[in-house]
């Protein structure tokens, strides 16, 4: 089965700093989703990447998909305390279906 490994597992940054979270798949990526989760709450969809090289931005968050490396990166520019939470990547287990596998998540703390 597909496994998604996220790095780092946790991250503590000062407000205003940039940061990057990586998600690496053990198998071919047919697409990749990024979510944000506050502790004990539901997942909030951030963005979906479908094609290699695709890059999407939402406010100060940018994600890119590298199909060859089977990897996606999530970059936050000028982080704010509101960015704090757990970021999870998710990917379909096979092409043509959305039965997702999730990464373990990256816990982000932003100090004001």
């Amino acid at each position, binding site marked *: 089965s597909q496994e998604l490994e996220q790095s780092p597992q946790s991250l503590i940054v000062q407000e205003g700093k940039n940061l990057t979270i990586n998600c690496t798949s053990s198998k071919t990526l047919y697409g990749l989703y990024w979510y944000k989760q506050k502790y004990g709450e539901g997942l909030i969809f951030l963005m979906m990447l479908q094609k290699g090289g695709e890059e999407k931005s939402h406010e100060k968050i940018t994600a890119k998909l590298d199909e060859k490396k089977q990897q996606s990166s999530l970059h936050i520019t000028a982080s704010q305390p509101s960015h704090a939470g757990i970021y999870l990547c998710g990917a379909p287990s096979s092409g043509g279906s*959305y039965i997702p596998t999730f990464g373990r998540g990256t816990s982000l703390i932003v100090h004001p």
Partner: protein
Amino acid sequence: AAGVIQSPRHLIKEKRETATLKCYPIPRHDTVYWYQQGPGQDPQFLISFYEKMQSDKGSIPDRFSAQQFSDYHSELNMSSLELGDSALYFCASTSDVLYNEQFFGPGTRLTVL
């Protein structure tokens, strides 16, 4: 805008009891997914429904069953509860099963004592 509604938000049960979790998808969403997230774990897919029919099955124990009703709401029935069933249970809905955005509910926190 209407979001996915789950009830109850919190549930405490004893071992061997039964529990029923409910999920009300966003209006006009015909697909519902159920996930289980244990403490410190990533969400695990349990089961999904499309147009009231089971569409995919994940790691759902035989003690659990689920269905989707004519109004598209879904219920997850859990019997013979075990301590290990304590987790956050999320449902998500979408209007397009293929590579489309899933909207997650706030979750039901089940604690089995």
